[in-house]
């Protein structure tokens, strides 16, 4: 059960990536259709979606890694405390 925390934090990573990568071009497509500027906004949306997907995923993973390190450090400290007493 120790791994549940990190796993739960990363459960949404897949659909987050999918949403960003699919959502950007979709939004761009509708803007293009509205303004008649195809394919400018579709491509811009794709680029933006990819960047946001990367940044978001990067942040989620670093956050999880930091949490795991913190947990490990906490456990180590508790163990040392137990050993000394």
């Amino acid at each position, binding site marked *: 059960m120790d791994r*549940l*925390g990190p796993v*739960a*934090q990363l*459960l*949404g990573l897949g*659909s*987050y990536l*999918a*949403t*960003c990568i699919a*959502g950007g071009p979709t939004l761009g497509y509708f803007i293009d*259709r*509205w303004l*008649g500027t195809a394919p400018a906004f579709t491509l811009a949306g794709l680029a*933006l979606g990819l*960047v*946001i997907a990367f*940044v*978001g995923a990067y*942040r989620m993973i670093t*956050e999880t890694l*930091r*949490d795991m390190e*913190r947990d490990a*450090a*906490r456990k180590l*400290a*508790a163990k040392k*405390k137990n050993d000394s007493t």
Partner: protein
Amino acid sequence: MKNPKAILIALGALALIGFGFFFVRGPKPIIEIKGEPLWTSSSDYGEFLTPMILNTQVAGVLATLVIIFVCWRATRNMKLIPSGLQNAIEGVTEFLYNTSIQMAGEKNGRRFFAVAATLFVFIWINNWLALTPIYNSFGKVVPVDSHHFHEEAHILTEQGGISWIFPFKLGGDAPLVEFEVDMHEVDEIDAQIRQANLDKAPREEVLALKEEREEALHHAQELAIDAAMPGAANLDLSEEYAVCGEEPEVSVTVIEECKREINIEHSEEARLQLEADGKQVAVIYPYFRSFNTDLNSPLSLAFISVVFIEFWGITALGFFKYGSKFIRNPITDPIGAFVGFLEIIAEFARLISFTFRLFGNMLAGEILLLVMTFLMPFLVALPFYGLEVFVGAIQGFVFFSLTVAFGALAVASHDHEDHGDEHDLGEHDVPGDQQTAPAH
């Protein structure tokens, strides 16, 4: 022949599947992505504002009642050593509570737990209730005519005051009708509207075009219904058809067109004949439909979740400090400003991914079950039911854990040196943690 019993069971199962496949296969399912309105207000406020009650909402209310009833039963006479229902509910609560604490720390975990666990229980119970037979099986009969158009409809048989879809294939045609709309004219008007928008044409002109489009669509739908009215093909029209081929040098398409026109002429006759047989062309709006298979419902849940996440962030850090995550001075800190801009969009992406994850999973599951029961009734659909039981619980848990995880992200200070306070405190959480505001 070691185990005659096992072979007998296997043969029985095969026979059951075969019997189902050849004789009890239902009609092709009609898949509706929108929630179906059971009641619509008679006053019309436009497409988006007309009040209506959807079957998904009814299902949501049912799930709420079920949750209230179960909790009432479980807590009616509580014991110190729990057993039965009380034990089960305490187990679920404890599991969620511990997960929440583990993910967000003692203080924040407690704060997040109430909202996140409520979301979990609601989604979970809804998803599991949707697997019971009262869902998607009976409902309101909506006849398909020129006012209520559907691209697909069932032929319902009325027996003893109850309309139902005759499930046996022995009776002849599969009871499904498809109406193909000729969108040719509508598309042309669409192109005109787009051009008018581009040319910045006056508003009245665009509105007139839109009205024209509406009319063209309605006309095309009426034609489609007339052309495909079931039974029209069964009428003895050979004499009328004979006229079509008389002229010399007519191509096949002309004959088809001619026959189609004759069909349209006789569609009213066909409809009357169908009604005389106690049948009607209609679609069924089920009274209960899985709550999360309508995009509005997961969206509203996602809104609750995201609004709470922002609320926790603001109360924990203060309005301006929390806002500085998103908006920074672009002159002194250009990279920070750009990252902040990305954060804002990521916040919306989070809302959308919350919505579509739940909606997509539940709708896909519903369609999977429908299609499997249509293709292979009996037994084959059972493993998929098991899968849906699993997915229903997992999706609720994902919603729960992401709410807690994002909440923990929101209350965490952006500056890295502030972050490790919990690490310093170790396992003993000091009340009045400086990082968070009081919970109440």
